[in-house]
């Protein structure tokens, strides 16, 4: 039993090093789909985070609570909801997002927006209030003050973005349900691992799992070491 695992592991390394075109295409697709998802969620999530972090308005606590609650949403549950909504017989069917990479991106961005908002707004909120007062007394405008605060909390925001990208690229439920794991179209790392394991292609599954973990680890490590400088 252990022997077959070692053999498979070696075959996996071969696949990666030989640059198998399909493995490459799946990897690029994962990066593209989850990267786009991260960008989308930042687009609407970061401005919201800044507003939540810096200002106070009625309903703020409710909104914060809402996003915190959605942090742990199971991906299959969200995937199922999206599948029903995006189906051609569903309310959002006109967008033709089901079984497309863009559909997965949209779905994943919904998944990770709570991460971006929760973490980024916490980071912004925890910046020193005295800094704001100092900026104000030195004559800074409202916008300049916000910029200064943002710069202070930048690392918190960067970590939020990294965390959400990692969550997106590593999730299976949405990619499977919304994407359908169609070869050459919506097959990504996570769905491929699931499929190839079900088909008994252990070597290929291990290869893809190694690549996925390498991506997630290296991004986290790279950011971490950059921060220490």
């Amino acid at each position, binding site marked *: 039993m252990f022997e077959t695992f070692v053999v498979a592991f070696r075959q996996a390394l071969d696949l990666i090093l030989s640059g198998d075109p399909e493995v490459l295409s799946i990897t690029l697709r994962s990066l593209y789909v989850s990267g786009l998802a991260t960008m989308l969620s930042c687009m609407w999530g970061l401005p919201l985070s800044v507003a939540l972090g810096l200002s106070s308005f009625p309903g703020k606590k409710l909104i914060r609570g809402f996003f915190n609650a959605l942090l742990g949403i199971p991906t299959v549950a969200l995937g199922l909801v999206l599948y029903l909504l995006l189906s051609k017989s569903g309310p959002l069917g006109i967008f033709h997002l089901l079984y497309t990479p863009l559909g997965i991106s949209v779905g994943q961005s919904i998944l990770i927006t709570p991460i971006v908002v929760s973490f980024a707004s916490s980071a912004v909120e925890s910046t020193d209030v005295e800094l704001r007062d100092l900026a104000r007394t030195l004559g800074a405008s409202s916008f300049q003050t916000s910029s200064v605060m943002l710069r202070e909390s930048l690392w918190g925001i960067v970590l939020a973005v990294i965390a959400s990208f990692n969550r997106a690229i590593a999730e299976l439920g949405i990619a499977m349900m919304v994407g359908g794991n169609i*070869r050459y179209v919506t097959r990504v790392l996570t769905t491929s691992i699931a499929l190839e394991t079900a088909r008994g292609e252990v070597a290929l599954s291990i290869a893809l799992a190694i690549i996925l973990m390498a991506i997630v680890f290296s991004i986290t490590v790279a950011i971490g070491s950059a921060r220490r400088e």
Partner: protein
Amino acid sequence: MTRWLAIASLIIVVMGAISYAYFSTQSKPKEHLIVSTTTSLYETGFLDILKYDFEKKYPSINVSFISQGTGLAIQTAMRGDADMMLVHDAARELKFLKDGYGVNRKVIAYNFFVIVGPKEDPANVKGLSPLEAFKRIKESGEKKGAMWVSRGDDSGTHAKEKSIWKTAGFDATNLRKMDWYLEAGSGMTATLKMADEKGAYTITDLGTYLMNYNKKNIKLEIIVEAGKDTLNVYSVIANNPKKTEVAKSNFDASMKFIKFVVSDEGQALFDNFGKKEYGQPLFAPYVKLLKSGSNAELIQWIKQQAYFDGTECPQEYRYQAEGLY
């Protein structure tokens, strides 16, 4: 401020590079055909061959196969998320036609289910008929001698299994509660692997079994051979363009695909797949068999199981089907 711009630009450049790399590995076809289908066809890799040859003939069409159990495949077609389907459950196919969702059904291939199990054959069913084997496996299971793994996923194979239990006098919904009856809820390969792990019996299509056995994924042996009761017939049905729920389906491409798989060219693909490795086609071509008339008994069996009132597709469910029947 400039640092912000620098960071934002960097991200955009990186995303752009990845997008470019990704898209350059893609081809841009003009239209899509989505076929919902069974897991057994998918897992053996046969659909990739169909796709490749079909797209060579029609380069502007991109075919996507969504492999699910037959039950889910039918629902996907009903929702209009697939343009056509390729399944193996005559009873549900008839319902699909009767409910107005499908037109132009064609029977295209067949193979046999076999009952596989551990070499030691703890329930002692070798050589029995499928019906007798099922009965004895149940008896053995109740005495804690043998176990059974079911697909449990509403697939065509699962439907076949349930119908055999029914003919043997048992209701599968009651059997599900028994300790010796396990439900995999998965595709065929995953189910076979589970049966292998547990030393249990299961029913499988010959194609998926042979593929996995040859790859040394499983050690299960064929305990009960193929017979009339375990015939497995595959058909295609296109979504009905006159039915509002599925009117937006790509009927034109579906018909092209159907005509392709029943053509000599398409049937040859069925005929060749598996011949070299296993000595027999994993999914035998039916249209070719019908044309040659070489095995009258087998043709009779297929017609008895998969035809409705003497035809594979009653007149009222045909639409723009010149030359097909």
